């Protein structure tokens, strides 16, 4: 393995302020084939116990990093302008050949995520380890991203596990 655990674990992957918006939530729900009216109709959402339209369970992955972040209220960049180190690390692994795969994904839901909320997203690399299996070396790179509300309470915690197999 070319990556050094001590240099990698703890590196910030990024931070942003994210506005949970109705259009992207509705479009995302349709794209995961979910026609449930709670994602599209405010009356249906309220009937299901929400204050506003809720986000589907996997919305935070990717979608909440791409939609709803605007320049006027972004926090200081914890990577110091270097950007998410995962891109560089994946590049390093790719040079060794083999395959890079999204191996595992985990969500812990602390409270509902709803349209109209402004969340603070912060991520870091939390683990790096290798396993030998069937004559192949598997390198696992794990990031954790937490979305917090205005009060600083966690709303969703995500763990993303990338596998490099060669």
């Amino acid at each position, binding site marked *: 393995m070319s990556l050094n655990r001590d240099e990698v674990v703890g590196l910030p992957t990024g931070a942003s302020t994210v506005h949970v918006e109705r259009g992207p939530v509705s479009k995302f729900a349709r*794209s995961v084939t979910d026609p449930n009216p709670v994602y599209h109709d405010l009356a249906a959402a309220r009937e299901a*116990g929400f204050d506003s339209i809720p986000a589907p*369970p996997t919305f935070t992955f990717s979608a909440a990093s791409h939609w709803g972040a605007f320049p006027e209220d972004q926090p200081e960049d914890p990577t110091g302008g270097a950007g998410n180190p995962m891109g560089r690390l994946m590049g390093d692994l790719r040079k060794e050949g083999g395959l890079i795969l999204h191996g595992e994904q985990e969500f812990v839901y602390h*409270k509902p995520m709803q349209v109209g909320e402004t969340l603070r997203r912060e991520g870091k690399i939390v683990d790096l380890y290798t396993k030998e299996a069937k004559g192949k070396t598997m390198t696992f790179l794990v990031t954790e991203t937490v979305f917090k509300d205005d009060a600083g309470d966690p709303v969703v915690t995500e763990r993303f596990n990338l596998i490099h197999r060669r």
Partner: protein
Amino acid sequence: MAKPIAKLRYDDLSEGDEAPALSHELTRSGLVAYAGASGDMNPMHHDEVQAKAAGLPSVFGHGMLSMGILGRALTDWAGVGNLTEYRARFTKQTWPGETLSTRIVVTGKSQTEEGKRVSVDVTLCNQDGEVKLAGTATVAVA
């Protein structure tokens, strides 16, 4: 303060119970829709020319689309907002033309400080029974 309504009752559920299954046929248009909605623009999921140049038979599905389809089966069953944990391992790639089916099986029940919980094993398989995604979830119940 949102209080999502639980659709399931603790006393009604036993180990081995299954949630209603959902089936969905993957299409290239569906992959493009997910790419656009999620912002995941990895060309292996929408650009057939690049995918073939990389040695693949065609574009393939996003693991997170599989997890999203299974997530729908979970929230249809337990009610939106009642999922407390959801974990998946992506075991095989998915391909356009495959019909993916969800399976959700109750594995345990517990009463926690936060409330009543039911744990499940989840899988997504294609029409030949090949497992694409295997994982676990926990749902809040009444």
